[in-house]
Every structure is written in structure tokens, then in C-alpha cells.
């Protein structure tokens, strides 16, 4: 059984929906040259012309990373597609840890739009596989404890709120509200 492989984590930002995404062309244009990255980068996809699209996405064999303009508000999305190993909680830890580490890295790039701040306490988590993890009670019963466990480690027990996705047609997942002001690197180091 392959278990959880496709997990998407979006770290929201305070960027306006009209943010010029051109800086990410330059950043990801450089990043994609890194042939040793575990995500195994393939290329970047430019969807900046779509007002509510995935923005600029660095596509990898095992994960995508991008600055996204869809849902809620603009933010950084890290979405795994494969290669996760270990227990479910290990996999989730890995997704959160890598997402925060990469968010810290992109925010430190010289071209990263000035004035855009990561809201590290505002997350959108989605299990991107309706065959393996349909949005129903059974999945919730199985996965929510693991999600909570990881969030306990990240923010402390009771220091966050989970808002499950109510629409069964959408992916199983949560909006997460937690303590703001913690840097992504600190959060990454907690896992």
C-alpha cells in the first residue's frame, strides 16, 4: 500500500491578489538547475496570466513548489506527489518541514517581492488524492490524529484551530489558524 503520498501545504501570505509574479520566474529559473534536489525538478510552469491560477510553479517529479494565486489568498504551495516514506506521521512531518524550509529559502531570495510577508500561522492543508483519501468520515478518523500530532509539535497543543473542508467534492484537508510571527525556519526546525 503506497499510503499518503500526495499532500499539499499552502502557507498564506499578505500579498495582494494582483501581485506581479515575474520575480518568481527568475528565482525558479535558477532553482530548477539544481539537479540534486530531492524533488527532482523538471521545469517551471508559468501561469501568471491566470488571475486565480497556480501562479508560477516549479514542477518536480516528486513535488511541486510555487507561488499560488488560487483559493483564499496568495501563498506559497508545496505539494508532494511521491517519494514519501515511513509512517503517516513521519510523512506529514516531512511535508511540513520541507514546506517551511523552502518557504524560508524563497523568501530570502533577492528577487522575492518586498513587502510580502509569510503568515506562518495561516495554512491550508490538502490531501491531494481522492482515491486514497476521499473527503469523508473514515479518512478523517484515520488522518486527523496524525495531523493534530504534527501541529502539536509545530505550534503546541491547543495553540491552533483546525477547520475541516466541508465540501465532500473537494479534497480532504483543513484550514489551519495558529500563532503568527514564528519564522518558517523556526517552524521547520521544530519537526
Amino acid at each position, binding site marked *: *500500500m503506497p*499510503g*499518503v503520498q*500526495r499532500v499539499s501545504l499552502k502557507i498564506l501570505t499578505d500579498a495582494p491578489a494582483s501581485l506581479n509574479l*515575474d520575480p518568481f*520566474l*527568475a528565482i525558479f*529559473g535558477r532553482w530548477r538547475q539544481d539537479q540534486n534536489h530531492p524533488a527532482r525538478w*523538471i*521545469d517551471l*510552469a*508559468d*501561469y*501568471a*496570466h*491566470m*488571475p*486565480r*491560477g*497556480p501562479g508560477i*510553479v516549479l*514542477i518536480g*517529479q516528486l513535488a*511541486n513548489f510555487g507561488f499560488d494565486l*488560487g*483559493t483564499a489568498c496568495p501563498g506559497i504551495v508545496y505539494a508532494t*506527489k*511521491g517519494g514519501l516514506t515511513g509512517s503517516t506521521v513521519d510523512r506529514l512531518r516531512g511535508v511540513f518541514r520541507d514546506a517551511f524550509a523552502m518557504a524560508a529559502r524563497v523568501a530570502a531570495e533577492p528577487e522575492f517581492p518586498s513587502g510580502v510577508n509569510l503568515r506562518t500561522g495561516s495554512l491550508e492543508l490538502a490531501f*491531494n*488524492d*481522492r*482515491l*486514497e*483519501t*476521499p473527503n*469523508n468520515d*473514515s*479518512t478523517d*478518523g*484515520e*488522518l486527523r490524529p496524525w495531523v493534530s500530532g504534527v501541529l502539536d509539535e509545530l505550534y503546541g497543543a491547543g495553540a491552533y484551530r483546525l477547520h475541516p473542508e466541508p465540501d465532500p*467534492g*473537494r*479534497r480532504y484537508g483543513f484550514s489551519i489558524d495558529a500563532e503568527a510571527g514564528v519564522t518558517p525556519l523556526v517552524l521547520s526546525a521544530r519537526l
Partner: protein
Amino acid sequence: MATSVVSETDRWSHLPPEVKQELDVFETELRRVQQGLMPEKVFLEFRLRHGVYGQRQAGTQMLRIKIPLGMLTTVQMERLAELAEEYADAVSHITTRQDIQLHFVDINDTPNLMRRLAEVGITTREACGNVVRNVCACPISGVCGDEVFDTTPYARAMAYFLLRHPDAQNFGRKFKIAYSGCEDHACGLAIMHDIGAIAKLSDGRRGFKVYAGGGLGALPHQAKLYSEFVPASEMLPLAQAIARVFARLGEKKNRGRARMKFLIAQVGIEEFRRLVAEEREKLTDDPLWTAGLAEAERFTEQPLLEPSELDPAGRSPEFLRWVGLNTRPQKQSGYSTVTVFLPLGDISSDQLRGLARLCRRFVNDTVRTTVEQNLVVRWVPRGELAGFYDGLRSLDLAESGAGALSDITACPGTDSCKLGITSSRGLAALLHHKFHNGLSELADRQDLKVKISGCFNSCGQHHIADIGFFGSVQRKGGHVAPVFQVLLGGATQGNASAYGLAVAKVPAQNAPAVIQKLSNIYAAERAGSESFADFTRRLGKARIKEELEELCALPAYEQNPGFYQDNRQPWDFHMSTGVGECAGEVVDQSEFMLEDADRLVFEATLAYDDNRLEDAANKALAAMTKAADALLFQRGLLLSDHYNTVAEFRRLFFDTGEFHAQFAENYFRAAQQSNGEGNAAIGEERTRRRIEETTLFIEMAQTVYSRMAGAKV
């Protein structure tokens, strides 16, 4: 996970058995090629015929999803949104032939992706490869005031009749069909297709004016008039006869000359007509010719809401502009079509899901993709347009400009295509931005169309645009710059009635300025209602070249390195093209059959190991029959002729001594056994022996096939 208790076998048991089997076979063949059990070349054409197309980025695939006539239901839209989200990059891309493409797909995901499409009645079968591609049709068929009649049922019948048809599996190249409801408009683009059908009445009877042998590509051909009138009931057999002629006589080796347009150019339309008529005479009646038609003619589209009229009083200028550009009154009073303008043909999963929800409120299942890479929503009551507009605004889908200059068509180019030379999408995105910033006074012009291809192959249909661009390169001082050839004089109107010619070559960075310059000259010097194509003809190439002269200059890299970057790609350009998969691989139909025989005997072995003896014996016999059919195909026998395989094999291969007698006798005995006592109780030992005999039979068939194929060369 929660559903992991569902076994893979049970999970898809609700699919129609033939669909389930087809997709199981696809997965089996995928695993076989990954294990080195199937030749790469055969698998390449096999996967293309299932819509799986290799991108320029190694190890990743584009999945082309066939949407016949562009017709989508809301359930299908939601499913497409889900699949794009889970298996691609959350974007569904509408193509210039009304398909939908997902990019950056892992090939290992494709079997389940196809199964989930099949759950909502969608197939990727024959979306790519050397087969009949998606059948296109005018997206406002049935609601257009100018049409002769609704071509929808006839085009649908054609699409499903030819899908998987045995006579359409042995072409040298792809084959495209389009239907149009009228002669004049641009919606169907019939004249640039292998078969173009334009609705026509003759003595009150429905039929079609039929064109044949059109196509764009590097060497575009306008279709020749095949017949002034073909009765609707004769369209399917006509297409079958044309398919047989193309399969038999079309070029197979020279990929650059393998489309049907070259065959017609070679033999002439008169001879082509004769060949087709001769083939038509040979066809045995197929109940599907009329059954499909009768079923298709029952198709009706019902509006969800009552008709009503729009009261423009007090409406915002933005809304009224959108109504002017993006809506069109239907022939049914009180309703309009709405064109949802999708920049570059892209729609996100959130938007597609939201649009499906919106359609459920206003129209239900009446959405169609367009060749201009947009979506048309039909049957919106005019009195509800404001509500529909508000819904689109909430999804960021209410951009005005459908069909206007800002509505640019572009192929994928270097974003994903192996053949791409320049970034057609980069230029299209840049122009889209400029039409909102700096060139906004041009954005709404409806007398100019721009189409862009990343190379000369014309997937962006640059030949039929008023202003067409196709990508190329120019070297200067050791550096290579992306450039675009500018074509003028094409026309989408009249079903793609004119093809443009190149007039200049400009650096990619200057392409927007070309549009601005030509548009300004046209506005200043146009004579009355003169079309752009007529205008440029009157102006002459010399004058146009002179006007564009300053934009053609490529500065040295040291002077302006920006000219050596492609649009929206802030790094130095380098040309990198591979072997495209548009042409697929020419794999003889017999090779496919022999591969199928191999797969069947492999499955027989699995069934035997699983102690399913009857299944194993049946599969082994089916494998031998498949191998026999492969050889019979080389003798000119077509599956659609419904011949008796055993009898014909005996006559042509056993009696003539061309096939090892003992192996052939094993086949005859197995067939006799199956027809007599059946395979239910032949026992383990005989089942095992049959599998062994089958293996030998297929090996011998491979040998005979090699000899025959070699002899033909």
C-alpha cells in the same frame, strides 16, 4: 488509507466491461514496457492512441483528453477539475481542437486517471497518434441563427462511429474531421481538415457539402471540394471508405508527406473520388451507419430556465462591454450564449469547479470548448445574464474580449512541446498583459485575430490568422535569438477560407510592436469595411515589409542581451528541440495485433497460475486468433469485413504451406474444441499444453510476419 480496503479489481468493477478491459490492457502494456517485455516503439504509438504524449521535459507526460465536439457536462467539468488538481498542475488547458490537456502527468498515474475519466463518460482513446483525432464542430451548433441545421447529432455519430473502428487503425498519420453549420463563419474551420463537412439542404433533405484533404502543418493545404452534397445518412460509410483508402494508399514512410492532403495532391481529387467510390461499393452494410445516426438524432438540449430579456438600464459599463463582446443572442428567443474567455486556454481547477456549479444554477449541461481555446455556455436566459456575469466575476472568469484581438490562440510551444522552438505561450501571455496595460485601445478590436505557433507546424493555427506568428531562431555573433515569422493574409472566416504567407521575421521581443504597427496602419488606411486580409493584399508585401523594417532588426547581444531572451523567460535563450510525437510512430496494424497476442498469452499464463483454467484456455485461443488476424491483415483482409479467421487462415497460410503445419493444426484443434465441447473442462494438462502451443504459434506468426514485411519492402 480509508479506501485502501477496496481492491484494485473491485474499485473499477462498475465501469462498462469493455471500457474496463481496454484500460486494464493499457495498464498491462505499460507494465510490460517498463519490464522490457514490449518494444518501446510499439508502446509509443500505443500510448499515443490512448492520449498519453511525451512532453519535452524528460519523464513527464501530457494527457490529451478527447472531448467530441467540445461538449461537456457539469459532472465532467468537476471530474476534470479534480484530476487536474491531483495528477497535473491544477490547470486544464483547452486546445485548438476542442480537447482538454493536462500537463506534467506521471505516466504511472495514467491508468487510474483514464478510469476516473471513464466514470464520467470521457475517453482519451485516439486523442493522439495516427488515428482519427477529436471530431470538432461549431460550439454554437443548434443555437446559431445562421446555421442551416444543427450539426451536433451528425458530428457525434461520426465521432463515436470512427472511435476504435478497425478501418481507422492503420494510417500513416493523424486524421482530422470537423463539422460546420454554415459556410461563412469561423466556428468550424472545416476547410483545414482531412474531412470538412458543412451543413446543406438539398430538396429539403439534410446533408453536407464535403471537403477533403485539408490541413495546416508546415505545408498547409486547403481542402478540395469532394462533393457538393452528401446525404446525412451516407456520411458514415463515406468516412469509412475514405479511411480505407487513406490506410491503403497513404504514405507510411516519409512522415512529412503522410497526411491525406498529400495523397489527394498526388492522385488528384477526381481519382481520389473514384477510389473512395470503389471502396464504398465494397463495404458491407453496417447497422451502425444508421443506428448511430438514429441515436444521435434523439439528442436534444433543454434549457434549464425560462427565456427572458435583458434590461440594460442601470447596468455597469463593464457588464455592458462584456455583453457586447462575450455574449451572442441565440436563435431561440430570450437566450444567449456566453463565451468564457480563458487567457491562453487555461482554467484552474477551482475555476472549473466553480463554473460547473454556476452552470448548474443557470443552464446545466450545455457547455462546449471552442477552437479559440475558450468555453461557450449555451442557453443562458438573457434576463439572467447579469447574475451569470456576477457568478463569473466571483471566479475571475468575467474577462471581456472573447473573439476580439486580445483573445489570442497559442499552441503549447516550448512550455511542453518537444518540437517547440520559441515560447508561443510566453508571447501570448505578454500580449495578454499588454492588452490590459499599454495596448488596451486595441484589445476589443473584432476585425483582427492573432494566432501563435512555437514552430512551423501550425498547432497554433498561425496560417489562418489575420496576423500569424510562428517561432524560429536567428544567430548573430555566436548568440542565438528567438524570432517569429510574421504571416499575413489568413482568414478564419468562411471555415478558414484563406492561408497567410510570411512577410517578415522579427525578434520575439518585437512581436507586440508588430501588432500595434499593423493595427495602426489598418485603422488609418482601411477602405470601408475591407477585411484585414484584403487590406494587406491591397497594400502589398513590399509596403508591409518596409513598414516592419525597423522591427526586424536584431541588435548584437552586447548591445541588448534582452533580445536573446524569449518572452517571459528571463534567461538566455537556447534552442533545444527533440523528436516530436505528433507524427507518432508508424506501427503496422499487424504489429499491434501481434503485441496483443503476446499480451493475451501472458494473461493466459497468469490465469493458469491462478487455476482459472477455462479463462486461460479462452485467452490462449484468443491469442492465436489475434496472431492469425495479424497475418491475414497482411493479405489485405480487414476486420470490419467480418471474415472467418480459421477458414481464411487455413486457405491463405496452411493450404499454401506458408505457416508451419503442426502449429497451424494446433490452432485449428483449439478452435474446434472451443466451438464443440468448449473450454470449461479441458483440464489442467491440456490447458497448459494449449498455452505452450500458443506461444509457439505466436512465435511462428512473428517469423512469417517478418518475412512478409521484409518482402514488401
